[in-house]
């Protein structure tokens, strides 16, 4: 009987999905970082006006997050509710909120990587890892969705 733990074949089995994951991660990471650096350049150079003026940002960042959001909304944004969750999508015309595109890509690339390897795992009938990968996608999507709200 073959010892499953010493077989190099096991390692080769792992290679397909591992390399696929690595490729997806590499592409997503580079896209996210490049966009983040470009949008930050746009923000600090003043090409696109920010919602909160650059010289006012430092007067708010010592506040707890809820107080920060309330104050910034009251003084600059004038929205019905302070912007949490995916509300930044509606303010992409502002230089500071533009930066969230790159941040969201960096946060989302892992979900894409997991989705990318599921077909390979299915093809190999690796049901335990298919289940775990699907569970991870659900967990990360739930975290990203903004459904899980917190109150101080």
């Amino acid at each position, binding site marked *: 009987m073959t010892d*499953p*733990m*010493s077989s*190099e074949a*096991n*390692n080769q089995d*792992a290679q397909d999905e*591992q*390399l696929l994951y*690595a*490729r997806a*991660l590499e592409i*997503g*990471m580079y896209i996210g*970082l490049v966009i*983040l*650096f470009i949008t*930050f350049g746009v*923000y*600090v150079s003043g090409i696109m006006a920010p919602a909160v003026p*650059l*010289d006012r*940002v*430092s*007067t708010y*960042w*010592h506040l*707890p*997050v809820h107080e*920060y959001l309330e104050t910034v909304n009251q003084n600059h944004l004038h929205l019905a509710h*302070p912007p*949490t*969750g*995916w509300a930044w999508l509606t303010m992409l015309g502002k230089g*500071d909120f533009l*930066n*969230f595109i790159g*941040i*969201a890509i*960096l*946060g989302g*690339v*892992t*979900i894409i990587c997991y989705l990318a*390897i599921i077909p390979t795992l299915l093809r190999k009938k690796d049901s*335990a*890892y298919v289940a*775990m*990968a699907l*569970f*991870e996608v659900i*967990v*990360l999507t739930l*975290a990203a969705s*903004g459904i*899980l*709200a*917190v*109150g*101080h």
Partner: protein
Amino acid sequence: MKVWGDREELPSVIRTGTLFALRLGPPLFALLMLLTPVEALAANEALAGSAGEAVSWWVWPLVLLAVTFLMGIVAVLGGVGGGVLFVPIISGFFPFHLDFVRGCGLLVALSGALAAGPGLLKANLASLRLAIPSAMIASTCAIIGAMVGLALPTHIIQTALGATILGIVVLMLMARKSEMPEVRRADNLSSALRICGVYTEESTGEQINWKIHRTPTGMLLFVAVGVMAGMFGLGAGWANVPVLNLLMGAPLKISVATSKFLLSITDTSAAWIYLNQGCVIPMMVVPSLVGIMLGSFIGVRILRVAKPAFVRWIVIVLLLFAGAKALTKGLGLPFIV
């Protein structure tokens, strides 16, 4: 009573201490030298803030860039992630609220892990089969940790952060790493999940077959690792490596690489909670990210000539300093340095 007449007779501990003091690396020295004026600047700004005379907007991002650059060098030399240095130091000495520091710390640790992940996976040093079950538990618990961390009052989190950092110092002092732990027989769970692998040891060219044991206990510990990562915004490499290496018996290289890759998943879940709560300020995130990345880049080059034991002490001193600062800040006590 023995009298220490000349230098040769000095007890070894004093000699070692003197040597250590004399050889304190420039990065650590520069970092410590920067922190005192940074704290003074923060205090001045707090006073001036009410009068509307805060410092120019570009000063803080620039200082953050300089400090995180040095932090990136020290982190690489000491073999720790940037997050574990970032959160206690930045929350202790900068004017930013802990909510934003944790959000930023997670993104800094996440970016570092995302950048390192592809290379580690391609080299077959990070194991996807080992990371997937560990990440499933750690990332789920990181969400819980983040939610609890954001719900608790700041002084409690700051105090707990200080205690955790001092605990990490104790762990670093006590834990012994094992290059190639002996695993006589893989446990049933790791056998069923086929968590094993082969990698080539570059220094010897030897093909190393590895397997793990005590998988259920290890997975249980990832519950605590995840909660702490989410609660404090720390990367969790300091906890991942001992669990993977000392407990589960993965070779040190596999443990370090898988831990780094694991952070890209654990920190993603917690980072989304902080991001959705509004705890991310781009003016803090981008300079920190650039600083840590550039510092890591330089750190890797210095690492070739640096002495590992010495740089490990640099990180321990730095963490002791930052942990004590966080603890005293949380308890409202004065910090005498």
